[in-house]
């Protein structure tokens, strides 16, 4: 009876004072509500049947977001690779500059490494940028003002401008080998290189902050 009623204390008191049929009758009346509420489910918002068009639209959104996720994961990986290659290009570029114009012996030993790093940096940066631009937009874009993504985008625009400038300037500097104005071009190339690197690092670092 205690198990059926779920109220052991009351049942214990009643079982001493009532005869058996009365106790059973009490048990029946107590058990009756529980048999009526076996299904606890309820509809907070009643479901409406979706039209075929709405279902197709929902599936299209899911597909585009899966594509977006995949592209942005590659974008992230290539972005990290770009930072690594850019740091390499900056280090070898500074070494190359010091070797040639900073009292070094003009051995040219860092040129090939600088070329490899800057080529890789340009290639990964361009690919990462294309992936980001190609990624489908999210279904809703809440206006959050200037957030980390906004700073990331602006920093990358600066970095992109810097990289394009560096490409042109780097080729121009190298082509002036043996000319007296090469030092001026190289200094400009070096300064813009650091600015570009700073923009790139800013754009990546800011993403670590919510």
């Amino acid at each position, binding site marked *: 009876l205690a198990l059926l009623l779920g109220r052991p204390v009351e049942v214990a008191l009643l079982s001493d004072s009532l005869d058996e049929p009365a106790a059973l009758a009490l048990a029946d009346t107590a058990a009756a509500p529980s048999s009526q509420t076996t299904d606890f489910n309820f509809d907070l918002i009643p479901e409406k049947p979706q039209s075929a068009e709405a279902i197709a639209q929902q599936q299209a959104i899911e597909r585009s977001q899966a594509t977006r996720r995949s592209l942005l994961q590659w974008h992230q990986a290539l972005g990290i690779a770009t930072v690594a290659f850019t740091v390499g290009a900056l280090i070898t570029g500074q070494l190359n500059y010091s070797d040639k114009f900073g009292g070094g012996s003009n*051995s040219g030993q860092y*040129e090939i490494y600088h070329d490899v790093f800057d*080529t890789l940096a340009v290639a990964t940066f361009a690919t990462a940028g294309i992936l980001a631009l190609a990624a489908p937009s999210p279904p809703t874009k809440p206006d959050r003002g200037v957030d980390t993504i906004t700073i990331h985008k602006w920093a990358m625009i600066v970095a992109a401008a810097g990289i394009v400038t560096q490409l042109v300037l780097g080729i121009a500097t190298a082509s002036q080998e043996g000319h*007296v104005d090469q030092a001026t071009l190289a200094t400009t190339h070096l300064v813009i290189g650091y600015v570009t690197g700073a923009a790139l690092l800013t754009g990546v670092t800011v993403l670590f902050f919510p």
Partner: protein
Amino acid sequence: MTARRVTVLCGTLWLVGCTNGQTSTGTIVDQTAGLFGVPTMTPGESCLSCHCPDSHMAGCTGKASQRVWTVAGTVYNDPMADAGDGVAGVEVIVVGDAGTITMVSNAAGNFYTAEDVGAIEAVIVQNSKYRMQMNTSVKPPAGDCNGCHASPPVVYSNAFGRVFVPKEGP
């Protein structure tokens, strides 16, 4: 230079390995200069035989015609020095009728310029202690110092051995 950068791109991204004097993209690797050439390459040899405008010129291979030097050479401490014993940090001043250019020898002793100095009137080679001067007039395109200044001395020239300046200290 664009070709150079394209080659680097190919070499880097397409995992090129140099085999049999060619990259897998077909770029010929010069046996003297390698894929690119460096400022310290082939000291003591005639620079302008490759760093000249085109192969139609007498004595010009045209191998480095994208980087034409007007004056180039290697400086040593001794006129009979071995080719690899070039000296770094020596100042080379070339006075021409179109201008004067000052160069500093690199780690291999090489110096070079692409600036037009016109007909060379004098060349000064100096370190902090000694100063050597050549007053022989040389008309362009004969800025190939090592073409005459060689060891053993070139028979047809008046140059006695390599371009040199005595060593500063013991």
